[in-house]
């Protein structure tokens, strides 16, 4: 009875268009009131604890802040220049460079639609100009944009570890190989297409130019190295790494790249300026720029945008913790697991069911909402069937990637439709072949757990566990 009430209320509230956070909270509180003896005061206490007792959750606002500073057109441009200089000379190089740029920008920004918007609006037009079919260009970018939630640091993974109490550091280790593999897979397919249809390649710009553009892009890319390095090395927790990343991202955006803030657009060296003057002027400006950012309009807007998104996510998570509490006290995952055991469903069969369920849910809901509702249910079942929780997490994230490409809620489709000016049907058609590739990749991830588990286990063995 309690189970039916909980889910009926949840879906009824959600489909009425209510904010998901409140739908989760209301259905959980009502179920608690109807079927258990908990007082409202104890529920209020739980909600306050959910927002104030989880140090790991702090990583979410910090990563959102750091990506807000670096999700700008300027950073996208620098990354694209670097990618074109490094792989552009191969056949189909421009498309491969776009995929590489998507992977790098996705890792920095952690958001899939932002990646498609930033990289797509530059490279799709560029690819069409150098003779690629527009459909191919749009399809590739829309698909590789989804890598944003798989390549660490990823917000969606932090949400998964909040929902299941799996270590976020280990999730970040597990996502790296699948993310890079998916990017590589896309590049290989592009190379084959390029060979067959004779797509153009760019001239190689020379190692000097490559080093130059690499150095410029490194300012933003260092963020990935700092975060992953400190987490993989076990020096810092994700929360600490994220706080350092946010401060670093601010410095790069305001002082280094000067894309925003009080010294926006001021060149490092003016024409004909002496070295001494360059040094003194830059030092004075840089030191001045940091306090001046406090009341700078652009910097304020970036912080406010980050505040809006992180507060929304954390409010959902707080309510989802009430939801998870109801699930455990009513032993819902436990009874589902028992039923499945009775059916004699093997682990691989369960994983098929998981994939189908998640793919359907991905059509209607945002990744974070799906994870927070589904993970607490699937997690205990998976553990009983002997599936590694980290592996389950990666499977869920890859499913969420596909969800971003399926109508009616596929975010990436809307962005591509927006930047190319074509209608949704055209975009869906362009994405279709690439989505099949993604489905094939999902099968690989699902049935070869080593792809996800190799790196975390290897790092454990290095540390002597």
């Amino acid at each position: 009875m309690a189970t039916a009430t909980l889910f009926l209320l949840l879906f009824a509230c959600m489909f009425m268009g209510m904010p998901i956070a409140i739908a989760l909270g209301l259905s959980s509180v009502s179920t608690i009131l109807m079927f258990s003896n908990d007082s409202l005061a104890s529920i209020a206490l739980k909600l306050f604890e959910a927002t104030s007792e989880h140090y790991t959750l702090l990583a979410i606002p910090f990563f959102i802040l750091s990506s807000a500073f670096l999700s700008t057109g300027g950073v996208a441009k620098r990354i694209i220049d670097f990618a074109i200089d490094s792989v552009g000379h191969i056949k189909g190089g421009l498309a491969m460079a776009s995929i590489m740029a998507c992977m790098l920008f996705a890792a920095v920004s952690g958001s899939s639609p932002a990646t498609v918007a930033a990289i797509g609006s530059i490279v799709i037009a560029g690819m069409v100009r150098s003779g690629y079919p527009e459909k191919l260009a749009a399809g590739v970018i829309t698909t590789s944009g989804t890598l944003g939630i798989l390549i660490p640091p990823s917000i969606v993974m932090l949400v998964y570890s909040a929902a299941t109490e799996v270590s976020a550091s280990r999730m970040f280790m597990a996502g790296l190989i699948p993310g890079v593999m998916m990017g590589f897979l896309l590049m290989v397919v592009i190379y084959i297409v390029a060979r067959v249809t004779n797509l153009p390649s760019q001239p190689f710009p020379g190692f000097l130019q490559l080093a130059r553009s690499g150095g410029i892009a490194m300012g933003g890319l260092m963020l990935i190295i700092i975060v992953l390095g400190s987490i993989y090395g076990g020096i810092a927790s994700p929360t600490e790494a994220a706080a350092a990343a946010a401060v670093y991202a601010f410095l790069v955006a305001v002082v280094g790249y000067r894309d925003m803030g009080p010294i926006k657009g001021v060149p490092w060296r003016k024409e004909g300026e002496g070295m001494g003057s360059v040094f003194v002027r830059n030092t004075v400006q840089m030191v001045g720029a940091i306090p001046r950012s406090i009341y700078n309009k652009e910097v304020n807007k970036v912080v406010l945008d980050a505040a809006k998104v992180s507060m929304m996510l954390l409010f959902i998570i707080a309510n989802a913790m009430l939801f998870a509490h109801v699930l455990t006290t009513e032993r819902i995952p436990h009874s589902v697991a028992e039923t499945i055991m009775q059916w004699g469903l093997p682990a691989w069969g369960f994983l098929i069911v998981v994939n189908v369920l998640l793919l359907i849910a991905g059509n209607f809901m945002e990744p974070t909402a799906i994870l927070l509702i589904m993970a607490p249910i699937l997690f205990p079942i998976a553990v009983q069937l002997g599936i590694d929780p980290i592996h389950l997490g990666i499977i869920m994230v890859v499913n969420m990637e596909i969800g971003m490409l399926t109508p009616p809620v596929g975010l990436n489709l809307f962005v591509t439709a927006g930047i190319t000016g074509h209608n949704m049907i055209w975009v869906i058609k362009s994405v279709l072949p690439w989505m099949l590739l993604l489905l094939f990749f999902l099968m690989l991830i699902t049935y070869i757990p080593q792809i996800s588990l190799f790196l975390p286990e290897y790092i454990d063995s290095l540390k002597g566990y």
Partner: protein
Amino acid sequence: MLGKMINRLEESFLCLLLVSMTLLVFAEVVARFGFNAGIHWAQEVTLTMMAWFVLFGASYGVKVGSHIGVDVFVKMLPRDVHRAVTMVAIGLCLFYCGLFLYGSWVYVGKLHMIGITMDDAKVMGEEVPKWIPTSVLLIGFSLLVVRFLVLFWGVITHKADGFHLADEAKESMHIADQLKAMQEKEESK
């Protein structure tokens, strides 16, 4: 005028909380790696700020439409049916707030009566009673009630059909617009 001022106030408070949380954790990292020291009250203060950030921010989120939800189905309904559904939904949201307001009132009252203090955080050597940071529950949910009443009025007066929900795809488009502006600037040079 008053609306604008309240807006500014809410925004500045939220930004201030976010920035202070970041800097406090960052300072702790620097203290640990650079000086081999710790700030023993940092964790409790940061976490309390997070609670304020989330619970205070929830109502601001309703106003500016930063919450996410599923509105593909209600948007297919005829307009008046959509409005009726939204009114019911707002009623349920108010019920949710009411439950939490009552629960928080009892909980904060109990904390006040027992007189528990915070573990590490002290203000000028004085212990801080725990009910003070916890009272954000009451503040947050009261503000949320206000926001939902405003929205309800909006639906009655035909100013709104449904909840104002976030659209991440639309928000990402501003990067595309920014790039377009950059390109046009370069071409005109």
